């Protein structure tokens, strides 16, 4: 058990999340973690399926499917999943949700610990019986909801297309990371009830998932409940192997696109580099490099572009943590109103070109300190986004090792300035760069529909 024993020093000590793991006969991996500091429990299931598993012509399907998981199953009527959980004291969105990424799909509940069995029952019912109550009407309804989600997050937002454009340039046509998770309107329209059934049978089997039960629980009791609700679900066929996702280390040539954006009030640039993926031994160095470049107000990008040159009003740098092929390191800068997109682009690139030389031990020390703090900060919550349960589920899904969460601090400590400089010198180079330049454009004439593309 974690809470009171955690050391408070700034460097190096072991932070442990203790856990118990087992595998049911049907292949379901289960991880239990006890933390009794509040009477809150979390259930978190990660299925080993994401948008990278989608077929040609079905972009966005893994995510559309995720929506169908909330539309009822054999013993749970449409609408009852949220209704039962909300009435049990869980908040929609932060405590009850499902999310889809390139590499996995997850479903979670965080609720008063006396309601643990309700969450297990709901997850088991949809894992076991989802397609028994599937209808065309339910699919059509959620297709509309997802199209609205796309409008809200992509088509109607300033710079909303940056992600799908970046992926389109950074990964070759046909590569599983080439398209965005939300997918295209056209492909969403094409999805059928049979697609939902096939996807369910292919990927939503107990042997393709990890279940984490965390928080104010008794492990023996929780084990009994898990067996009671999940033990009878039949093992599925092994999921088909992924396409080969390996890629050359770098892009092999600069890519650049200028986007006229009617929604954008000021210019912005998005600059992307291919970097080692989250399963690579350099993964922690990639995280720290992104942080050192542009996170926080003492990063070189912030100091030069926002504070000194004052050409940008904000900068950020981050990586996705994709686990196959190559990950991406992305730098974003927003220009001040009226600034020229061209000079913003030049200024950002000038800084990135000298990062390998300009980054210092002080920069690295700061992001290491932030990384250590962030880890403890995250551990404050049992479930929901990024809490203890999520960390354990991620550890299993990506690394097949729950103990991965306990090695994070040591990984951070090991990274040196030389590692960061070598990575920057190798990867932050013009021939490995995708540049998107967003230029504010006048709104289209009345009657002209802005494109809702998906390629």
């Amino acid at each position, binding site marked *: 058990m974690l*809470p*009171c024993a*955690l050391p*408070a020093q*700034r460097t190096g000590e072991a932070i442990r999340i203790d856990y118990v793991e087992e595998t049911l006969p049907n292949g379901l991996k289960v991880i239990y973690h006890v933390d009794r*500091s*509040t*009477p*809150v429990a979390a259930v978190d299931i990660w299925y080993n399926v994401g948008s990278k598993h989608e077929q040609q012509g079905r972009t966005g399907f893994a995510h559309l499917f995720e929506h169908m998981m909330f539309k009822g199953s054999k013993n*749970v009527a449409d609408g009852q999943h949220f209704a*039962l959980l*909300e*009435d*049990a*004291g869980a*908040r*929609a969105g932060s*405590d009850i949700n499902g999310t889809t990424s390139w590499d996995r799909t997850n479903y979670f509940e*965080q*609720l*008063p*610990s006396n309601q643990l*069995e*309700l969450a297990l029952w709901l997850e088991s019912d949809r894992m076991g019986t989802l397609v028994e109550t599937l209808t065309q009407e339910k699919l059509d*309804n959620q297709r509309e*909801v*997802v199209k*609205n989600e796309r*409008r*809200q*997050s992509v*088509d*109607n937002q*300033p710079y909303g297309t940056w992600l799908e454009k970046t992926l389109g340039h950074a990964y070759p046509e046909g590569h599983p990371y080439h398209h965005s998770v939300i997918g295209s309107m056209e492909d969403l329209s094409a999805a059928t009830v049979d697609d939902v059934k096939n996807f369910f049978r292919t990927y939503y089997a107990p042997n393709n998932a990890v279940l984490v039960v965390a928080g*104010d629980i008794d492990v023996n009791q929780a084990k009994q409940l898990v067996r009671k609700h999940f033990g009878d679900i039949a093992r599925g066929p092994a999921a088909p192997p992924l396409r080969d996702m390996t890629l050359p280390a770098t892009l092999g040539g600069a890519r650049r696109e200028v986007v006229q954006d009617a*929604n954008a*009030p*000021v210019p912005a640039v998005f600059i992307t580099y291919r970097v080692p993926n989250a399963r690579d031994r350099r993964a922690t160095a990639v995280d720290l490099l992104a942080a050192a470049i542009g996170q926080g*107000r*003492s990063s070189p990008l912030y*100091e030069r572009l926002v504070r000194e040159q*004052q050409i940008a*009003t*904000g900068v950020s740098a981050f990586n996705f943590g994709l686990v196959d092929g190559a990950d991406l390191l992305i730098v974003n800068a*927003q220009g001040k*109103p009226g600034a020229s997109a061209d000079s913003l682009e030049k200024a950002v690139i000038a800084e990135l070109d000298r990062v390998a030389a300009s980054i210092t031990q002080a920069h690295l020390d*700061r992001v290491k300190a*932030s990384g*250590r*703090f962030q880890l*403890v900060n995250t*551990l*404050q919550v*049992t479930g*929901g986004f990024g809490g203890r349960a999520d960390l354990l589920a991620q550890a299993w899904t990506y690394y097949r090792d729950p103990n991965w969460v306990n090695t994070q601090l040591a990984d951070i400590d090991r990274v040196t300035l030389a590692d960061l400089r070598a990575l920057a010198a190798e990867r932050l180079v013009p021939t490995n760069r995708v540049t998107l330049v967003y230029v504010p454009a006048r*709104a289209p*004439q*009345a009657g*002209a529909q802005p494109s*809702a593309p998906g390629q």
Partner: protein
Amino acid sequence: MRRINYPLIAAAALLAAAPAAAQEQPPAPSALRPYQVPRVEDFRLANGLRVVVVPQPALPIVHGRILVNAGSIYEPLEKNGLASLTGQLLDEGIQGMTGAEIAARIEQLGAQMGTGAGYAGGTAQVTSLKSVFPEALELAARTVTQPTFPEGEFTRVRNEALAGAVQRRSRVEGLAAEAFSQALFAPTAPYSRQAAGTPESLQAITREDVVAWHRRMYAPGNATLLLVGDVTAQEARQWAQRVLGGWSAPAPQLPAVSNPVQAHSGTRIILVDRPGSVQSGVAAGQAAIAQNDPDYYALDALTQVLGGGFQARINTNLRERHGYTYGAFAGFNPLLGVGTLSINSAVRTNATDSALVEIVSEYRRLAAEPVPEAELRGGLANIVGSFPSSVQTVQGLAGRMERVLMYGLPLDYWASYRERQSAVTPADLTAVAGRRLTPNALTIVVAGDLSKIEAPIRARNLGTVEVWDASGKKIR
């Protein structure tokens, strides 16, 4: 804290919600382990600074918040954005350190720090591991007590605030929210304006204004230090005395604040054009009440039923039944002396008028028909049951405590809050709906592509229709 009988409440809700066709019934809850809200300590330093401490030592993290009654509600009408700009500038330079040096030191400690101001208060917040917290808190304290507001940083930060205001108006959600405040409150009301200011108002603010504002408003007698997390009352006293005990400044006479509501009979619809929009941002509602109003608990429960979650009426209608949106929710936002109640959503352009019809109809139903007991019990169980997880983090617990301080509520408010909230009855809802809801005099703001939505909205005859520009000027 007295024990509350949650299992009964939850069981009643489950029973009522159980689907008729289901073959298996949902499992019943077991006995709930009670959650005890941490005890709050409260004292004053000799210079008048109030210190409030909430020990929660589960992890070695401490959160500190210095709250000064220096929010935008106190700023002069013609200087909208002054309080916010002052707050943002606090950590851009202190005696002996530049803004860049402060940022570097804070990050070196692995701390998170931020300064700013909203409607009610100016704030410096800091969170870190306990071992470095005394130094992090000292830096945060110095941003409040000895900021230097360098000229160069003033110009830069004002330009960034201007850019932020421009960015806000580039999104339909931002346009709708800004116009909603302007439509709801009279032009003299501080709540009619954005605390962050507008592109127009920020231009008029000078560095001298900021210096004078800080000198007038930031004083120990007008401030509270809130400490939450792995901290004892004794440590809090030592730290507070060390970093803020020497702070000396005369406390201001806070001006009386009045937020009159715009009177209108009938529902008023305001349209803001954003050509090319594929969705429209909608904010629809009315003025409401403050958190210290006796009707607070019933109105909060009523809001929960209307739009407090996924299964609530407005999301079930607009998203799940009609597919007009990705999500629709209602929010009750208690402010000082007044509050707002609104339904917010982004809806498909070609369904905007239909969505408005549904919003008005749900609002009217809430006012006209008694809320069924089971629906109320479910809503209350959600508000009350989710409380412990909402205060698992030091930041979440501090947010709750800030409300107590802002309203002058008793310090043990949250310890007994769940009992008071659970006591709301269907009769209370009916009474409060009658007293507080104005379903026939709503304020509705829609930001979207007027070439597509204006004519259909007018054809629905839901109320008088006006068209405004992004700054709130009436065009027609």
